[in-house]
């Protein structure tokens, strides 16, 4: 077992604290020499804060969850805070490599938990009185935890954020395999916990949004800390090294979701819907992420697939009235969607850039309008196509529940299995395409179309192929969608859905598989969880889109090539405004 880690910077005798300039420089410089001490104090405050009562009374809409009115308790967000605080103390005491970077991430997590819970308690519980003291009991939990969190962030930032260490331990094969299995299982548990945290939301459970957001904050902080320590990077290298093995394990683990706490019909449905949009987002990722062709009407292909499937499913409302086996229907949906994809993509031969985006938008709008007007009697118009029968193999219907011995799996579990396999298949297609000759051609076109053409790439057919393949994947997802939801209406395929899909791809990171899945999950889980904000959902969504483009255009999971492309163009980055004249003029 050899450790080829760089020498931890902390091992160097008393590294000079960094000098800060800019805003808060005075404060930062004051903290810098005793950053670790401040971090430890912050960690202790976070733990102390978690054990104080957070709310002074039973709030307007019932008790705040996790016994937040009582002193002492180790459940829910209080547990998260304790873990984050302890981790901070341990990391700061042990001086692990990149200590300040880790500490900063942990601090952000703790702050997020404190802010979210505190805000919810004050906002939903009737003003600041809910969070401050009343009748003698001290309810400063949120305040103390918040101070702790901010101190930790401050310590991390002031101590000088180190570069992320690159771990590269070479372990025996079997240990690496076991590690991967354990990590993936842990990931599954975290995902299941995240999905179910806070419950279903709605009137019965007014604080589900708070619990979920708080969980998200804590988990985000923990993940960022793992990332900062280099461990996440190590796992990525590890899974890259054993690619096939990790793909198989990941698939098996994903199929294990029904066995966790998320194994109820409701969550299976949520997970299946996420799967549909994840598969579609991966298809869109071919067009946008790989080939760099912005498609603003992409959801139309999902719609075409869904309507084709609905018409071939033997639903009473379909005018065709044919009933074909599901697998065949999927193939036909994909092919039809692919044909439309090629048609929509054909203007790429002449139109580029944002003009192309508008052309795709126009196609998308034509689709919606036509579907709304029940074109050819195929879409049901405003009545939609209801009562699409469930997928049935033999006598077994996919929406029945399954009982294996003592184990009773909820209904909808078969759909979940199906969509997991579908998404896995789509990922496989995407991954192989990306690393193929075709994928490289797409990336070349994305980077510089003229240069690609000069290198002998036949750009026209290859661009159309991107549209065709992307549309086929969406068509597959559409066929599944039709059977799962049982009703297909034009309403599900509006422009906004296209924008949401695009946002999923961008948020996750263009051109990457985990990015598309992550983005789709976030954008379709959040509205499910935050029902009480449903009025503001799109407003927040729009603002988020603006902010992402402003601050992290490469998305959460950045693609290596893409990152370089999205960097600012240096020659135009001359100082804006009435400053001194630029010394060089851009060509």
């Amino acid at each position, binding site marked *: 077992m050899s450790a080829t880690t760089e020498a931890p910077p902390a091992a160097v005798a008393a590294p000079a604290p960094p000098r800060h300039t800019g805003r808060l420089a005075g404060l930062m410089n004051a903290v810098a020499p005793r950053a670790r001490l401040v971090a430890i104090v912050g960690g202790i405050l976070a733990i102390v804060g978690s054990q104080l009562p957070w709310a002074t009374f039973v709030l307007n809409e019932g008790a705040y969850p996790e016994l937040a009115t009582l002193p002492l308790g180790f459940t829910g967000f209080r547990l998260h805070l304790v873990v984050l605080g302890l981790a901070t103390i341990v990391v700061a005491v042990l001086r692990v490599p990149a200590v300040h970077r880790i500490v900063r991430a942990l601090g952000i997590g703790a702050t997020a938990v404190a802010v979210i819970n505190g805000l919810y308690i004050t906002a939903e519980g009737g003003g600041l009185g809910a969070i401050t003291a009343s009748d003698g009991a001290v309810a400063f939990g949120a305040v103390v935890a918040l101070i702790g969190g901010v101190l930790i962030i401050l310590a991390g930032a002031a101590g000088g954020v180190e570069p992320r260490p690159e771990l590269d331990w070479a372990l025996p094969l079997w240990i690496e395999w076991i590690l991967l299995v354990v990590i993936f299982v842990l990931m599954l548990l975290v995902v299941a916990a995240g999905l179910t945290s806070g419950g279903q939301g709605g009137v019965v459970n007014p604080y589900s949004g708070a619990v979920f957001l708080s969980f998200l904050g804590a988990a985000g902080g923990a993940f960022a800390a793992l990332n900062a320590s280099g461990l996440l990077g190590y796992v990525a290298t590890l899974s890259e090294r054993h690619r096939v093995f990790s793909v198989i394990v990941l698939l098996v683990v994903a199929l294990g979701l029904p066995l966790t706490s998320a194994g109820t019909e409701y969550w299976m449905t949520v997970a299946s819907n996420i799967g549909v949009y994840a598969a579609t987002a991966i298809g869109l990722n071919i067009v946008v992420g790989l080939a*760099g062709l*912005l498609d*603003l009407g992409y959801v139309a292909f999902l719609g075409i697939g869904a309507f084709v499937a609905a018409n071939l499913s033997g639903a009473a409302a379909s005018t065709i009235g044919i009933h074909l086996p599901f697998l065949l229907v999927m193939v036909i949906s994909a092919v039809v969607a692919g044909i439309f994809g090629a048609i929509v993509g054909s*203007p790429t031969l*002449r*139109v*580029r*850039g*944002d*003009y192309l*985006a*508008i*052309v795709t*938008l*126009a*196609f998308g*709008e*034509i689709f919606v*309008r*036509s579907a*709304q*007007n029940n074109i050819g009697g195929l879409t049901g118009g405003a009545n939609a196509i209801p009562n699409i029968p469930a997928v049935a193999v033999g006598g077994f219907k996919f929406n029945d529940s399954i009982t294996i011995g003592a184990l009773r799996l909820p209904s909808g579990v078969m759909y979940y299995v199906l969509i997991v396999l579908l998404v896995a298949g789509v990922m496989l297609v995407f991954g192989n395409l990306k690393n193929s000759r075709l994928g490289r051609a797409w990336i070349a076109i994305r980077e*510089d*179309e003229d240069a690609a053409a000069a290198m002998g790439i036949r750009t026209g057919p290859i661009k159309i192929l991107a549209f065709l393949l992307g549309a086929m994947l969406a068509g597959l997802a559409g066929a599944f969608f039709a059977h799962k939801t049982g009703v297909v209406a034009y309403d599900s395929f509006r*422009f*906004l859905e296209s*924008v949401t899909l*695009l*946002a999923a791809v*961008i948020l996750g990171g263009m051109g990457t598989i985990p990015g598309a899945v992550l983005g789709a999950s976030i954008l379709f889980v959040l509205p499910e969880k935050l029902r009480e904000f449903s*009025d*503001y959902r*799109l*407003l927040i*969504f*729009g*603002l*988020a*889109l*603006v902010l992402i*483009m*402003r601050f992290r*255009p490469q998305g959460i999971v950045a693609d290596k090539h893409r990152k370089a*492309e*999205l960097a*600012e*163009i240096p020659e*135009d*980055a*001359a100082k*804006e*405004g*009435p400053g001194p*004249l*630029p010394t060089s*003029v*851009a060509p």
Partner: protein
Amino acid sequence: MLSTFLSQIANGLVLGSLIALIALGYTMVYGIITLINFAHGEIFMVGAYGGLASMTYLLPTVITQRWYFALPIVLVVGALVSILVAVAMERFAYRPLRNAPRLAPLITALGVSVALQEAVRVFYPGATAAIPFPDLFIQGTLIIPIGDGVPIRYTGILLIVLSLVLAFGLERFVERTRMGRAMRATSQDRDVARLMGINPDRVIVLTFAIGGALAGIAGVLYGSYLNNINIDMGFQNGIFAFTAAVLGGIGNIRGAVIGGLVIGLVKALGGQYLPGGTAYDYVWIFVVLIIVLVFRPQGFFGETERVRA
């Protein structure tokens, strides 16, 4: 027959001059910073709501009952609201991305569009459904005595006249004034313009402001003509206006007006005579858009084909 045809022409011209007003903003912004300002349609929508708000909440009935007082005030308020939103949008959403790759501002524009639409829906009282909008001009309909008579509302006539006047004024402004020259210079080469002592930021803000003003006026006139407004009006008419701008040759003021009139006529006549009727009139506009973009992306008046990366 003839009067049906002519009244559809009249409808088309009214809608067309409205679209032309919006298209001017598209075309100017695109001319200066080659950005498809998707959110421009929402600027138009915001202007209509701003005007309506002044009508409902601010102005006393003494004024609202007399159109010659109310109309100018509401138009100005609508324009001001739109200018404010447009300038803020430029400052906070687009300016930080001026050197970013092309996709980024376009996606930002989508985000701004969604956010503005939702902001109005959430915060304007009653905006979850269509809101009635008063007719701000002389009530009634003029019957042009051709055939069985061609009806056109006075508000429609106002719309056509005002649009043409504003477009003409804008063209004079861009062609004849110092600031107009600065705009043309900035659109040709921002860096050289800066060397010539022009402040491109100011020019860009001015462009957004002018586009916003025209859109705001268009919004108020739209409400006044159709007598109700909803939050979707921006997106739809924005796309039409974009089509018009491209049709006329993007960056070209006269082209935007003619493109707008053509789009208006396509919608009115297509809804009357093409298969599918009014249910498909939107579809025809999008078909026109696709055909234009594919076969003549430089539009009617565009001079050279832009090489677009």
